[in-house]
């Protein structure tokens, strides 16, 4: 019997129907599905922008975070205007903000500044301002936006009680807060994947032990634990060291849920037919893990990580807000919010809440992004 002929007649595939189907890889499918998710896509753009701001903080901020001008305290945000009236009465393009004129309060004899429509502070993009070193390395004095004359007042988000620029501080705070989220998650990820992988792969008493440890850590109330650990940091330590330690403290909690997820996937996939098939193909254990198990849940892990960052950011913000996290002169969103801790500033200077708004935007965007990634992670359903 001629086998090849016989099987050929049984062959089921019409020539034309599947011309270009099925060539897209997992990664392409995930990307395709992700891009269908408009909200997640928009959130992704927002997150990228926020991280860009954090990365290029010195360049984006008009001033250094420590810059202050005691003449201009508690000023409301200035409005950025694009058209100005020339001396001859014609309207021409020119970015500017209105300056202030000072008067002395007849009762308290304090100098008060009122916005004066007639005073024009010209503003430019890529202006020369205070010199800085980008990432502490590259010297420059170009700022994305700023007054042409650095000595003139420029407060797009108002100023605080010391006359510091809220916008500049917010931009620098963004760097600290978002990087804590990222570094914290990276540490959790390493811990979670390694310990979860060991737990799920080896099983037995190792698994039992790691699971009990995870349960113990999860059962400890978070805020008191953080408070205890943070309070134990000596006041004499440098802000950078404190920053580092706080990150560690936060990620101590974060790894547990990741470890559980990794373990669960290892456990359930170890007996999947395609994994057994790979074993029967003579593939070694390590290759099975590297080639069959891990790629399968990378996308899931990216999604969980994205969803874990907001928790980290909120944790840092909460700790700093309570005064047990980062300490000035380091600026983070939590440190900034500390400024707005009293009724007076809330009533008189609501712009000090800007970091809070940014926290909400960031956390929401990360959550939407994470949801979109999680949905896309399984493109076959």
């Amino acid at each position, binding site marked *: *019997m001629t086998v090849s002929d*016989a099987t050929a*007649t*049984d062959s*089921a*595939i*019409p020539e034309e*129907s599947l011309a270009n189907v099925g060539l897209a890889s997992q990664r392409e499918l995930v990307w395709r599905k992700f891009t269908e998710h408009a909200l997640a896509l928009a959130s992704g753009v927002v997150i990228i922008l926020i991280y860009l701001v954090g990365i290029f903080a010195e360049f984006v901020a008009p001033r250094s975070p420590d810059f202050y001008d005691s003449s201009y305290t508690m000023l409301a945000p200035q409005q950025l205007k694009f058209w100005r009236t020339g001396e001859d009465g014609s309207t021409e393009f020119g970015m500017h903000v209105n300056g202030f004129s000072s008067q002395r309060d007849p009762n308290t004899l304090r100098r008060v500044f009122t916005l004066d429509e007639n005073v024009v502070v010209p503003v430019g993009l890529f202006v020369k301002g205070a010199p800085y070193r980008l990432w502490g390395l590259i010297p420059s004095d170009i700022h994305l936006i700023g007054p042409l004359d650095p000595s003139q007042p420029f407060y797009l988000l108002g100023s605080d009680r010391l006359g510091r620029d809220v916008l500049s501080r917010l931009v620098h705070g963004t760097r600290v807060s978002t990087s804590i989220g990222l570094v914290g998650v990276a540490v959790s990820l390493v811990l979670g994947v390694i310990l979860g992988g060991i737990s799920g792969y080896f099983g037995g008493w190792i698994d039992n032990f790691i699971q009990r440890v995870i349960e113990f850590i999860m059962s400890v109330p978070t805020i008191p634990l953080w408070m205890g650990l943070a309070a134990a940091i000596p006041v004499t330590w440098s802000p950078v060291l404190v920053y580092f330690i706080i990150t560690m403290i936060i990620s101590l909690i974060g790894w547990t849920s990741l470890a559980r997820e990794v373990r669960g996937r290892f456990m359930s996939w170890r007996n999947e037919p395609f994994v057994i098939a790979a074993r029967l193909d003579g593939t070694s254990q390590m290759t099975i893990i590297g080639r069959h198990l891990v790629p399968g849940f990378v996308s899931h892990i990216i999604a969980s990580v994205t969803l874990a960052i907001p928790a980290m950011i909120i944790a840092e913000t909460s700790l700093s807000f309570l005064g047990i996290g980062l300490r000035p002169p380091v600026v983070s969103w939590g440190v900034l919010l500390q400024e707005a801790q009293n009724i007076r500033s809330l009533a008189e200077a609501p712009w000090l809440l800007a970091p809070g708004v940014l926290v909400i935007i960031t956390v929401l965007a990360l959550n939407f992004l994470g949801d979109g990634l999680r949905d896309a992670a399984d493109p076959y359903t």
Partner: protein
Amino acid sequence: MHSQTNSQPQSQPLLSIRGLKTHFALREGLIRAVDGVDLDAHAGKTLCIVGESGSGKSMIARSILQIVPPPGRVSDGQMIFARDGRDPVDLAGLDPAGKPIRAVRGRDIAMIFQEPMNSLSPVHTVGDQLMEKILLHHRMSRHEAEERAAHALGRVGIPNPRQRLSTYPFELSGGMRQRVMIAMALACQPALLIADEPTTALDVTTQANILDLMAELQAETRMGMIFITHDLGVVAEIAHEVAVVYLGRVVERGSADAVFYNPQHPYTLALLASIPKLGARRERGQRLHSIKGMVPHPLNRPKGCPFNTRCPEARPGLCDATDPRTLEFETGHFVSCHMRDPAIVTRREEATV
């Protein structure tokens, strides 16, 4: 109970489906899951809908009860349901979320599924679920409901029904669970029972028992039954009437005898030829007849007769261009095939002469 003559349909079918269409409007295109189906189900008789996966057989069942998953919906046709002593209703015209169809579901028409574990709640006892079902449609005391629940379990052959009322579904075997599902379906004395592959997940031995049970209960209650399966053996065991479906169309329907012993449609012929038959011992190396190709993707359905891409008799220019008519080949035996259409076949014969 198989001995009744089943070539002569009764005057008034219990459920008469005409031109039923259920479509799914997806972004990729329109899927015609059910595409102009005519069927009749009679009281006291079993109609088997048989087809491969993707034939739309389950969607026909779901369309009857208006439980098509979104974005699918019944978009055309009528389904006249005429229960004895009540006015006929057109189920196709009812709002899927409305009260009238909910009153029909469960009480007049009951449905059982392939995997009973998915339709039973794991956190409630069998008795609670049965009683809830009974109390939903009937006014009676809890005690009476419990009485009736125990009776229902006894009737489907579950030993010690009263004790079984307090067991949880996971404590039962697959066969027992399916019996519980049948008991629940029959608790409100429906006029029509729709069974979607109820025995597919079961062992042959259990399957035989469940099929016997269903036939017995039908003989007792005179209910109509629509039985959906892919297994022609099961069809032969239980069917009075058979409808063979392919890509959302009924290609052939008629009495079980007509379809098994005088099949007309090339698809029916091919299906019957492709199953290994017990007792028909092959010579070594003898091959099974197989249908070439596979069921086309629903988004890529062929023009004309849906089966033309795989049909050994298909005539180019005809079968792949125009839809075949449905003809009554003999009384109660309908076939949709150009090559069985006297108008076309005689013309061809004349042409070859």
